[in-house]
C-alpha cells in the first residue's frame, strides 16, 4: 500500500466480508436447512442457526434404508459420482499426457494433422452434438454403464494443450542428454518427464475432478437407470415443488453431501487448484 490509510483498509475488509456473506450464504442456508425438521423447513422463514436434527437427518439420509429416488440410497449416488469424477480426471490426464508426449517428442508423418484433430475438439462440446452422440452411445450399448458415463468425457483438447505447452518448455538438451545416456522413449517418459510434470498433473487433477463431479447434461443423457445416477442428477429428480411429500430435510442433506466433496478438494488442494485454473485456461 502506498498511503497508510487505515480507513480505506477497513472499508476493504468490510466489503470483503460482505462479499463472503453473499458468496457463502446459499451454502450455509442449505446446511442450516439440513439440520432442521421437515416441519421447520416448511414454515419460513428458516432460523439462522443450525437446528438439533443434524445427526438424525444425516443418519436417516445415509443409513435410513429407505431408498428415496427409485430405491437408490445416497451411498450409491456418492459412489457413482466419485467413480465418474476420478475416472474422468485420471483417464483424461493419462490420455492427454500420452498424446502430448507423442506430439512434442516425436517426428512422424501427420503429426500436425493429429494436433489439429485434437485441437478442434475444443469447438465441439457435448451441447452442440447432443442427439447424434446419444445415438452413438445407444449403438455401442453404453447407456447406463460407467464406460458410457466417463469415456466420452476423457478426450478433450484442454489437457493435451496444457501438457504440450509445458513439454515445449523442456530444453532439448535434456532429451539429448537422456539419449546419449542410452535412455529410450519409455525411460525418458517415466524417469524425467513424469517427475517434471508432477505439479501440472496435480493442478489438472483438481480441475478435472471438479469437472467430472459437476457434470450434468452428459449423465442426464446416458443414464436411465436410477442405479446409475450421479448425485447431481438424483437431486434434480428429488426436488419437486408440486409434490406435497417431498422430504425436504433429506433433500437438503443430499444437497450438502453433493457439494461437500468438491469443496473439500478445492479448499484443501487450493494451491494446485489456483495454479491449474489460471494455467489451464490460457
Amino acid at each position, binding site marked *: 500500500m502506498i498511503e497508510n490509510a487505515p480507513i480505506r483498509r477497513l472499508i*476493504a475488509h468490510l466489503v470483503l466480508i460482505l462479499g463472503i456473506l453473499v458468496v457463502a450464504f446459499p451454502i450455509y442456508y*442449505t446446511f442450516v436447512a439440513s439440520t432442521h425438521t421437515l416441519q421447520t423447513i416448511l414454515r419460513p422463514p428458516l432460523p439462522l442457526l443450525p437446528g438439533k436434527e443434524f445427526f438424525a437427518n444425516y443418519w436417516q439420509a445415509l443409513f435410513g434404508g429407505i431408498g428415496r429416488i427409485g430405491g437408490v440410497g445416497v451411498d450409491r449416488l456418492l459412489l457413482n459420482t466419485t467413480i465418474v469424477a476420478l475416472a474422468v480426471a485420471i483417464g483424461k490426464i493419462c490420455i492427454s499426457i500420452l498424446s502430448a508426449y507423442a506430439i512434442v517428442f*516425436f517426428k512422424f508423418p501427420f503429426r500436425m494433422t493429429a494436433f489439429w484433430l485434437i485441437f478442434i475438439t475444443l469447438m465441439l462440446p457435448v451441447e452442440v452434438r447432443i442427439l447424434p452422440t446419444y445415438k452413438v452411445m445407444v449403438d455401442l450399448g453404453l447407456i447406463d454403464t460407467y464406460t458410457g458415463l466417463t469415456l466420452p468425457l476423457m478426450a478433450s483438447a484442454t489437457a493435451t494443450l496444457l501438457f504440450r505447452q509445458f513439454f515445449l518448455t523442456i530444453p532439448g538438451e535434456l532429451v539429448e542428454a537422456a539419449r546419449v545416456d542410452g535412455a529410450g522413449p519409455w525411460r525418458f517418459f517415466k524417469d524425467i518427464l513424469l517427475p517434471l510434470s508432477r505439479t501440472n498433473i496435480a493442478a489438472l487433477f483438481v480441475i478435472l475432478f471438479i469437472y467430472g463431479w*459437476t457434470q450434468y447434461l452428459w449423465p442426464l443423457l446416458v443414464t436411465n437407470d436410477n442405479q446409475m445416477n450421479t448425485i447431481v442428477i438424483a437431486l434434480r429428480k428429488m426436488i419437486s415443488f408440486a409434490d406435497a411429500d417431498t422430504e425436504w430435510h433429506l433433500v437438503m442433506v443430499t444437497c450438502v453431501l453433493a457439494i461437500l466433496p468438491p469443496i473439500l478438494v*478445492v479448499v484443501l488442494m*487450493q494451491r494446485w487448484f489456483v495454479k491449474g*485454473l489460471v494455467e489451464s485456461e490460457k
Partner: protein
Amino acid sequence: MSPRVTFPNKILPYLLLAPQLAITLVFFYWPASQALYQSMLREDPFGLKTKFVWFQNFAKVLNDPNYLNSLKVTVVFSASTAIIAMGMALILAVMADRVVRGRGIYRTLLIWPYAVAPAIAGMLWLFMFNPTMGSFAYMLRATGYNWDPLLNGNQAMVLLVSAAAWKQISYNFLFFVAGLQAIPKSLIEAAAIDGAGPNKRFWTIVFPLLAPTTFFLLVINTVYAFFDTFGIVHAVTGGGPGKATETLVYKVYSDGFVNLILGDSAAQSVILMVIVIALTAVQFRYVERRVHYG
C-alpha cells in the same frame, strides 16, 4: 520454436496418440458430422421417410419466433450473468489486493462456489427463493411484493442470473487477483508520487492494464453462460414459465430429446457450433496477443 530433439521411433507415436484419437473420432467427429448431415434432412411425422432438404431447416429455425425468442433470452441471460459476475469479482479482487492481513482466508472463503455444480447452484437459490418454503420469498411477500419465479418469467430470469453469476464469481475473482498482482507496483508508486489519488490510479492505470484479463474473462463468461448453464435452467425452471428462460442449448435439448424434431434440433446444433467456433477463435487470437505483449 527451434527444431526439437526427438526420438527416432516410427510406430510408437501413433500408439501413444491412439487412445485420444479413437475417443475423439468416435464421440466427437462422427456425431458432429452426423449433426451436420441431419441438419439438412427432414423426416415426415411418422419417421418413415427422410428427405434431403439442403438449408431449409436452417431457414425454418431462423424464422421461427420461438428460436428468436430463445436467442434473445440467451443474450439477456449471458450479458447479465457476465456483467454481474465480473463486476462483483472485480470489486472483491481490488479490495483483496488492498488488505494485507487475512488475504488467504478471504480467498479460501470466496472460492467455494467454483466447486458447486451449476445445477446445484440453481437449486440452492431455488431453496431460498421458491414461493413454498424459501425464506427470502417469504420476506419479499411480507413486504407486499408479488414474488413467484415459477409463474413470472422476469422473476425466473432474475433467479437464474443470480445463481449463474454467483457460481462464476470465484472463477473471475481468482483471475482478477492474478491480473492485479501482475501489474508492476512501480507504476502505481510513480503515479502516487505524481499526486494521483487511489481512485484516479485505479481508473487510469489499474483498470486499463487489467483489460486483457477482463477481455479474456468476458469470453470465458460468455461461453459459460451459453453452454455450462444448461444444468441451472434444466434444474430450476425447465425453460419456463412459458418460454421465458429457454436458452439456446436448452432448446436444442428439448426439441431434439423431448419433442423429437430431429432436423430442427440438428440445425440448431450446427448454429451453436458456429457460435462456439467464433468464440474460440476470438479467445485464441487474443491469447496470441497476450503472449507478445506480456
